């Protein structure tokens, strides 16, 4: 890159939703007025102390925040290097970081007078969080989920149904998260008058990447004060898994201007980067899909390719536009972990820490296994334990066969 580094990595996006050349608003005209309304409503809510107070109250009393910052003592001893902390987003109500964002968007939907909520979901954690908040606030909820994911994440499908949501299996394309997002957009374009689209990650047209990031930034903000309290200094490194990248952005964003903090995002390398995978930065190129310009997996003709990951939550051929920009300016280092590496890390975490991690953060743990042993014991490393793994037990058992 020839362009000089920005004074701040936290200033984006610009007023047209761009992070460098990434982001933007690439949507059909039917949706454009809705997106402009949303941008205005969010700006007003963000500046309204009453909205912020309402969020803070529910985050504390309903979600259970702050989530602990936990010293993973046996994992640290096992690797024999960096001192490893887990940010326990898995202990949130509904079992993952997703609820932070959903709470914000549902309160905004209420404020905008939208009675019907739609969402897309991959692993089902965003769907469960959305179904939960809709139940709590008495809103209608429709969740689009790829038919493949409906099969491999049955517990979450049942949870959504128990919470009163309608789960619509999507049978177009590859029947996974990308196709669920297409269907949700088709629903939104049809039901413009009463429907709020609750996007689950830091992607989509502006203002979603910014808004979802803001709602998730509570993760990194808490880590900052918790690590200062525990260690009296900032961490030396942060590690998080990345599909669309909302848990990672939530952890990273408050630290972007602390340039001594090394930041690692871990993509899903599936069967390996030369085979089927879901690593858009490592194996993709900039393109336009789902309302934004970002790194995408595609062929030479610009046709989107199917992603593959053992983790349904990372099984998406794109990444949030702000991550794409942070990659290009070199602020975040992007690594990738294969299905097998993630499964090994999953087992290790269960046995050493008594924590069953979701397959998504197991990808982050897989890279901790590589990074931590090479680092000195005074190196403080914070890993985002973005969700719990109960939902994944059936697929882990299937993959590990007799070893499980």
């Amino acid at each position, binding site marked *: 890159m020839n362009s000089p580094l920005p004074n701040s990595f936290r200033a984006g996006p610009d007023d047209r939703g761009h992070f460098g050349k990434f982001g*933007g608003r690439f949507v059909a005209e039917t949706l454009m*007025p809705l997106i402009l309304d949303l941008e205005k409503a969010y700006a007003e809510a963000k500046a309204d102390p009453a909205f912020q107070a309402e969020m803070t109250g529910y985050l504390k009393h309903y979600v259970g925040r702050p989530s602990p910052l936990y010293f993973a003592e046996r994992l640290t001893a096992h690797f024999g290097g960096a001192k490893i902390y887990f940010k326990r987003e898995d202990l949130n109500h509904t079992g993952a970081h997703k609820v932070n964002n959903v709470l914000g968007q549902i309160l905004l939907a209420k404020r905008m007078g939208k009675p019907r909520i739609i969402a897309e979901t991959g692993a089902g954690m965003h769907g469960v969080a959305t179904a939960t908040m809709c139940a709590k606030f008495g809103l209608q909820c429709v969740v689009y989920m790829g038919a493949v994911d409906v099969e491999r994440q049955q517990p979450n499908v049942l949870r959504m149904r128990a919470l009163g949501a309608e789960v619509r299996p999507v049978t177009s394309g590859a029947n996974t998260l990308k196709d669920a997002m*297409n269907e949700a*957009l088709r629903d939104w*374009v049809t039901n*413009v008058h009463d429907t709020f689209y609750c996007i689950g990650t830091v992607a989509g047209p502006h203002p979603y990447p910014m808004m979802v990031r803001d709602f998730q930034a509570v993760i990194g903000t808490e880590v900052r004060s918790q690590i200062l309290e525990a260690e009296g200094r900032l961490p030396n490194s942060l590690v998080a898994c990345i599909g669309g990248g909302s848990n990672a952005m939530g952890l990273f964003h408050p630290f972007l201007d602390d340039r001594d903090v090394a930041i690692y995002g871990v993509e899903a390398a599936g069967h390996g980067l030369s085979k089927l995978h879901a690593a858009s930065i490592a194996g993709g190129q900039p393109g*336009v899909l789902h309302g934004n310009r970002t790194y995408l997996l595609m062929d030479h*003709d610009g*046709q*989107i390719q199917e992603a593959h990951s053992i983790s349904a939550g990372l099984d998406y051929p794109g990444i949030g536009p702000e991550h794409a920009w942070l990659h290009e300016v070199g602020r975040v280092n992007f690594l990738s972990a294969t299905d097998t590496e993630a499964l090994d890390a999953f087992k290790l975490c269960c046995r050493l820490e008594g924590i069953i991690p979701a397959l998504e953060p197991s990808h982050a743990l897989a890279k901790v296994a590589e990074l931590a042993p090479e680092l000195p014991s005074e190196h403080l490393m914070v890993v985002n334990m973005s969700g719990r793994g109960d939902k994944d037990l059936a697929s882990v058992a299937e993959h590990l066969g007799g070893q499980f």
Partner: protein
Amino acid sequence: MTGRIEARFAALQQQGRAAFVTFLMAGDPDLETSLALIKALPQAGADIIEIGMPFTDPMADGPAIQAAALRALQSGTTLKKTLDLVRAFRAGDNVTPIVLMGYYNPIYIYGVDQFLIDAKEAGIDGLIVVDLPPEEDGELCLPAMRAGLNFIRLATPTTDDKRLPAVLANTSGFVYYVSITGITGSASADAKAVSSAVQRIKRHTPLPVCVGFGIRTTDAANEIARHADGAVVGSALVDVLRNSLDAEGRATATTVPAVIELATALAQGVHAAAK
């Protein structure tokens, strides 16, 4: 120089009739059949031909056109081959306007500047790119205008009077009014609502206004053509095409005749409308 689209609307206005605009996906179910179809469309009464550029993720399209795009991609259609298709059509027809319709990513990956050079050379007159609203005009709309191609914008029921000037500002050729909020091939449009929407748009622009989404029958095409400068039919033609395919999704001897028969009937509906 007057473009083919402008010339066509001027001629239609003299004849006092509306334009019949057809949509088919390039390479559906294969490029050879596609060429045979678009070559036959002017004779069947098509005044303007829209050709879909297949894309894996057509977010604003219903099941019929999604499936058409997948058939086209399966048969090996690329953006380059779509341009070749138009070039082959132009060898025998230098007057019927051709408009490419689709999504931005394949064009972006082809390279905007090279695409505009190649599209112009192939004989393409206009572009409709669903996921490029006025907010992203710098991407393709402005370069296309400079390259001498029409950039045809979609206006929708959600495009209010406040927003219309922005939508129309860099639109040329014609305005495509999407008569419903929804995806292609779903609900049908209410003629009264369409009529008032067309009048509303015409207060803001001298451009012709064509109406699409939800037109499936000769009667519906006739009704819309009374209230607009043109009627666009896509999903209905694509459905007939699909129903003519064999079990493996390949073209049969009935494919071209079946599509052309429906196109002919729809054209009669449009052309019978008194203006």
